[in-house]
């Protein structure tokens, strides 16, 4: 029988503990999900989540405290924002976004916590093994995940994740506010753009490639690729290596 490898990043403050419920049998949960205890679920860097998938997890469950109750005031909102971006990125990479889930739980109540874990586990069993595990693992998805990892590690996505609430909801002192729909559009655009850029960067760092070759690999119009390459050149991510006959070949530069 298929035993999914599930990693749960569980907030310190949401994980039922033996101190709260002395009779709680820890081992009942633990074979179903490997718990990595963190200070706050909002603390989990998207890079770590993608890294976990790249290392072969079948599913990642994030468990935090319900919305108004974060110990760090807004950590769970951050976790929501990060999950949103991660799901968008996962759907771009080809891995099922449902393999990542964010749930809320109280440390004092054991029942909901077990229910969440059971439901998620059943869901993962339905989805089957991660395409990144095993002998015939999908190289393309793996490279996509790596590109996504670089994308979330980059500046623009990181800043955008952190500021979603401030930009869309908070009544900041200067009355600056972006409507939620506008922000979502912006997020879509930037996620797509950053993913594409880091995908190009990853491809060209392995091999010198022309615009057309990149376009066939990532399945986009060459014009779009060229535009991204122009932007990336100005950001010192990529450079023209040499021109073969009439085809310019690009190589990735090391990003500082």
């Amino acid at each position, binding site marked *: 029988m298929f035993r999914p490898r599930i990693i749960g990043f569980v907030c310190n403050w949401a994980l039922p503990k033996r*101190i709260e419920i002395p009779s709680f049998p820890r081992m009942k949960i633990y074979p179903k999900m490997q718990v990595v205890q963190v200070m706050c679920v909002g603390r989990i860097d998207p890079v770590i989540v993608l890294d976990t998938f790249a290392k072969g997890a079948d599913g990642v469950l994030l468990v935090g405290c319900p919305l108004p109750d974060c110990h760090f*005031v807004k950590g769970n909102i951050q976790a929501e924002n990060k999950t949103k971006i991660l799901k968008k990125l996962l759907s771009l990479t080809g891995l099922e976004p449902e393999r990542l889930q964010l749930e809320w739980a109280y440390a004092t109540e054991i029942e909901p916590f077990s229910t969440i874990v059971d439901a998620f586990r059943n869901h993962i069993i339905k989805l089957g093994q991660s395409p990144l595990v095993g002998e015939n693992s999908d190289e393309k998805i793996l490279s996509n995940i790596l590109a996504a990892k670089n994308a979330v590690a980059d500046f623009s996505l990181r800043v955008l994740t952190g500021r979603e609430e401030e930009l869309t909801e908070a009544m900041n002192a200067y009355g600056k506010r972006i409507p939620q729909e506008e922000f979502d559009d912006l997020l879509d655009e930037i996620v797509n753009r950053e993913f594409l850029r880091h995908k190009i960067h990853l491809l060209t760092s392995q091999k010198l490639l022309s615009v057309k070759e990149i376009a066939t690999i990532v399945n986009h119009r060459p014009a779009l690729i060229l535009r991204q390459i122009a932007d990336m050149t100005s950001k010192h991510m990529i450079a023209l290596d040499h021109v073969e006959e009439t085809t310019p070949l690009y190589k990735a530069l090391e990003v500082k």
Partner: protein
Amino acid sequence: MCQIATFQGTSDGEHAARGCRQKMIKHDPNSMRKRKLPPCRAACPADVNVQAYIALIQQGKFNEAVEVIRRSMPFPAICGRVCFSPCQDACTRKEIDKPVGVRYLKRLAADIEREQRNKKPEPISVSHDKKVAIIGAGPAGLSAAYDLAKRGYPVVVFECMPEAGGMMRYGIPDYRLQKYVVAKEIMHIQDLGVEIKTNVEFGKDVNFETLRSEGYKAFFVAIGAQISRKLGVPGEELKGVFYAVEWLRDIALGKTVDLGEKVIVIGGGNSAIDAARISLKLGAKKVIVAYRRSRMEMPALPQEVEAAKKEGVKLNFLISPKRIIGEGGKVKAIEFLRMKLGKPDASGRRRPVPIQRSEHLYEANTVIPAIGQIVKTAGLPSLLLDKRGLAITANLSTLETRMPGVFSGGDSLTGPASVIEAVKAGKRAAESIDRYFSDRAIDRYIDDGDVSNGGKVEVEETTWVKHVDTIIKKPERYIGSHVDIGRWEASFEEADELLARNKETAISEARRCLECGPCTECLGNEKLCDADKAIINEKLCSGCNLCAVICPYAAVKKNDAEIAQVDEDLCKGCGICSASCPDRAITMKKLPDAQIVAEVETALRRAAI
């Protein structure tokens, strides 16, 4: 928990009381590593983390704010008064309304800290055996001493005047910078372990040979530019001609001068304006500042010029003295020549060109030339000096001179400049001397930006506060300088009112900061900044059991040896035990990302079984 976490939007007092790392989480812990600096910080010659102390002032944490400034330089109160504040000029907020009043905030924070401080700072332990001698206790010398002492070198500063402080004490008049402020800041440096020997003149009492024989291995020559430049016109030897720098020094030393009714100050720098304002305070009826270029080219601080005008100083532009006319050995009048502006010269300002046959007379009892300062080179070895023997030569970026182990900087190298630029030179000298001792390449680390990071970080400004035009304009900022002419005119007290000594005003002014950078890197209290778990230093623990009583999660317990132990599974990193431990035995440590990744790996391995 983050020191500058804000609690906007929480109505629940309990949330606020818990403390949080909200801001840090908001920007992601990894955003501590950022690529660019906010413009204010990039603009500061001394690399003071402006954004951090503004953010701490927003929280009302004035003492912590001063600590942040002291990390970069030793003169928060002095720079809060006399700095020309390039940070304020660079502030992004200026594109909306007015820049944040950084200088006044710094001044208020420093003043509050000075009043509240009730104990001396701990002396820094000496960890190197190579002694450093610093010649000149001005801003450059003292900040070099401060930086070197912080790096663990034994430092001795030699000063020829009876008090340390250099131009900060003997050049800048009382109404801009009070003596006790300077004295307190210098006392802070001394408390850290820097020794200052006053009334020791270099070249007379000591020189490089005697100091080397006493065991000093490196030297920083920061003697400043202490002599006024001569006018070079006939009649300079007459009675009634006082040179600005020497004259200001005499007044600071408490000498009295008879000025007469009419005073003419020649020059357009800060010394000229200082001299003019002081003449007025000393009882002169009519004071004229004569400058050979126009108002645009004046190097003096605009607010100083404005204050001088308000007090009744007359400014005459585009005139240059031709000769000083005397009567009975005393000054009677000056003949001026009218000028016009020609093409820009090397300094980028337009060169004044005399207009022929435009001579005219001004009556005067006293003439105060303030047209620049030069270095007193007597007593210095010729190897330090240039070919003509008039100025010190050194590498402008690494401050090395031709003598091995001897460095020079500040006014004595670059000509008269500002306090903050002298601090920059001092910090740079400290870095160079440290590299000289530790055999690291001296000439490699400098770009023109950053010294404290060894030149590794590219100093670039953030540009991420965009769409500034959409931000609502706030009312005019508090300008600070409320000079009540009637009261201050004849006084040597500081003329600038503080931010009404009002913390509320300061906090709301600080809130105008746009925070052009993710984490401010204030590291307010580094132990708490990114703490995840408590650790106990068993040597310090006295077994009082307070931590066990106070821990809300029952994570701390005493073991058989009466020493507190932390259960890592239960500890939630709140820091309450650390804050309450009377022995300071509990510190907080961080749970790094790498540890989480390692845990993930073991978890995956466990799952595969």
